[in-house]
């Protein structure tokens, strides 16, 4: 126990004396937590639209003004012809070209049917898809308006209609940052702890100071614990600042569920994660190596964690990878407890899996750390 105390003292001194590293550990993640949710907005709005109006009629003008006033679209400009408007797509000035053919108003009234041409820049598939869907919804609306002008609607509908009442629980205003902030906080804590921890032992190896420790009577698990605890504390601290200062004051997110439960899971998760960092550390010889390998795994962990895209939509083999990824569980639990107020009984399974991760990584790391080189 006394050995551990001295080891911890050494580690903390080492961390706090490194003036170049401290701001990186503490300030960077918080700045990112401020910026990333603002940037990570998937909502499709501000679709730039270029209009080619061959008709110049009352109806075509009404249509354009209806599209622009919907709030989803921004007018990028009028083109005299389709090739002219297409140039704007090539230059990325417009995402969408709406071509209104000549005689639009006349044909619509006389022949009861009229085509409109829409060309979408589909390089970004999601945006193209949603932008197209918004536009067709507006067109249907506009179409109904015109019909209303010509036919008086019947008071009572003779067709059966189903009224759909939809409600959005937990986040009625569909605020995207509610969804992103807990996930991003989880990722930042993960990155800081995993990198710092995986570099730590390797640094002693590279500089050669590990020899001095190897010849002392310090036990293997003392050494591993001494490396683990400081980063565990830092992880807890960064998380708390993120949760109580930034998430609450800036984004107004107050956890619905129990804070104790959240911290319980975090504590367990950090042990598992740091174990993973140590494991990488024991396998590497230089910091560059440790960093590369850690980055390789972190990248895969982050992409497969369901932070940006949902795990449910992945194909079977990818779901298996997601299931073997501790970050997935942590992000899920964060969102469940903070946003939905899940209780212990709801996340029992997550706890069990995380305990398994923690034991595996740490025991493996202790076994793999050899005091003889």
């Amino acid at each position, binding site marked *: 126990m006394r050995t551990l105390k001295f080891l911890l003292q050494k580690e903390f001194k080492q961390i706090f004396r490194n003036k170049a590293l401290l701001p990186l550990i503490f300030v960077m993640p918080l700045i990112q937590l401020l*910026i990333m949710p603002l940037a990570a907005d*998937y909502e499709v709005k501000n679709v730039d639209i270029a209009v080619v109006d061959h008709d110049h009629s009352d109806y075509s003008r009404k249509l354009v003004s209806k599209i622009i006033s919907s709030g989803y679209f921004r007018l990028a400009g009028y083109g005299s012809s389709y090739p002219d408007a297409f140039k704007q797509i090539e230059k990325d000035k417009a995402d969408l070209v709406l071509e209104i053919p000549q005689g639009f108003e006349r044909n619509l009234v006389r022949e009861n049917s009229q085509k409109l041409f829409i060309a979408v820049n589909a390089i970004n598939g999601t945006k193209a898809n949603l932008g197209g869907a918004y536009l067709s919804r507006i067109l249907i609306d506009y179409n109904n308006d015109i019909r209303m002008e010509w036919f008086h609607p019947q008071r009572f509908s003779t067709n059966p209609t189903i009224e759909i009442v939809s409600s959005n629980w937990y986040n009625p205003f569909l605020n995207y940052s509610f969804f992103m902030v807990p996930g991003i906080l989880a990722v930042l804590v993960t990155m800081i702890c995993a990198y710092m921890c995986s570099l730590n032992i390797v640094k002693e190896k590279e500089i050669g100071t590990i020899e001095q420790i190897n010849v002392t009577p310090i036990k293997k698990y003392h050494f591993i614990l001494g490396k683990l605890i400081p980063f565990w504390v830092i992880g807890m601290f960064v998380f708390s600042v993120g949760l109580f200062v930034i998430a609450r004051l800036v984004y107004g997110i107050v956890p619905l569920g129990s804070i104790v439960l959240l911290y319980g899971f975090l504590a367990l998760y950090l042990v598992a994660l740091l174990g993973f960092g140590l494991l990488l550390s024991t396998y590497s010889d230089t910091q560059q190596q440790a960093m590369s390998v850690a980055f390789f795994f972190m990248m895969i962990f982050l992409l497969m964690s369901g932070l940006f895209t949902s795990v449910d939509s992945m194909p079977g083999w990818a779901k298996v990878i997601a299931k073997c990824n501790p970050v997935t569980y942590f992000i899920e639990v964060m969102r469940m407890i903070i946003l939905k107020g899940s209780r212990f009984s709801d996340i029992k399974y997550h706890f069990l899996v995380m305990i398994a991760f923690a034991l595996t990584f740490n025991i493996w790391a202790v076994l793999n750390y050899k005091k003889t080189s």
Partner: protein
Amino acid sequence: MKQFLIFVKKEFYHVFRDRKTLLMLFGLPIAQIVLFGFALTNEIKNSKIVICDYAKDAASQQIIGRLAASTNFEIERSLLNHQQIEEAFRQGKIKLAVVFPENFNNDLQHFNKAQIEIIADASDPNTASTLSNYATSIISSYQQSLVKSNLVPLQIVPEVRMLYNPELKGATNFVPGVMALVLMLVCVLMTSVSIVREKENGTMEVLLVSPCNPFLVIISKAVPYFVLSLVNLSVILLLSVFLLDMPFNGSILLLFAESSLLILTALSLGLLISNSTSSQQSAMLISLMGMLIPTMLFTGFMFPIENMPIPLQIISNMVPAKWYYVIVKSIMIKGLGFSAIWKETLILFGMMCLLLAISFKKFKIRLA
């Protein structure tokens, strides 16, 4: 010149003897292409939903049948009452609940009007609104099938064409992004760390007192990473064309020239970072936090830049990868020539000159 070549050779040995680092250098781009290409979609499929059917009549059964037939949904189970919906949401698996009130069919047949309640778990807002839209359109199509006559007057028929990417694949959007990310990663991170390592180990002193020009020493450190980046670039391009069926419409030569420009910009940034730090850990954290994450955020391949607040949009202009992303999209997918991208090229070139100038200015021949 001969000295320079010898130094370059030394650096190549350094890189190739470190197997684990090589794993990342070549494994990561491949893993990213595979994951982005096959595992990550913004499409929402197989979402688990629950049904709470108080009516249990013909109409509700038919709608449930239609919901179950859709590939977007997977009906997990039926619930008895509203309390269970909340429980199901809290357990986290269920994304949507559809509630049929009592006498659903009766109301629909006799009053021509009935209600369905859709409750979405909006803790994930995008999924929630997409799923509500899917469910709504399935229900509307059922409603349409009840109406006999379908002659609608004054019909506007939109004819939509999807340019460049008619199948709406995700790959066209992210492959240029992955290219930018990998090039930045290899060049900024690896270069800065490998230079700082010599400082940390004390071997930098030895190199600096050698008769070789100190600038050449530093440049020779960058050469292997320049070559490796080009190899990586080719691997990514081959994978994306042959594995993901990406189009390649423009000139390969132009693409490689522009990529070299980005690589040089990234290398100068790596030099700058290595000149300003003295430990590998801080070099790594600066390049990771300060360069890679902004690259992911501000290139526009993950999140649309036009949605960001104005200050962030201004910041995004300072990220070299953003301009490269525009260039790659223009060349690869739109098949445009140099005349369309000279502005972006000029900006990248300016950034490179600026970074190089600063890092040479900060470069010290003597260590402290």
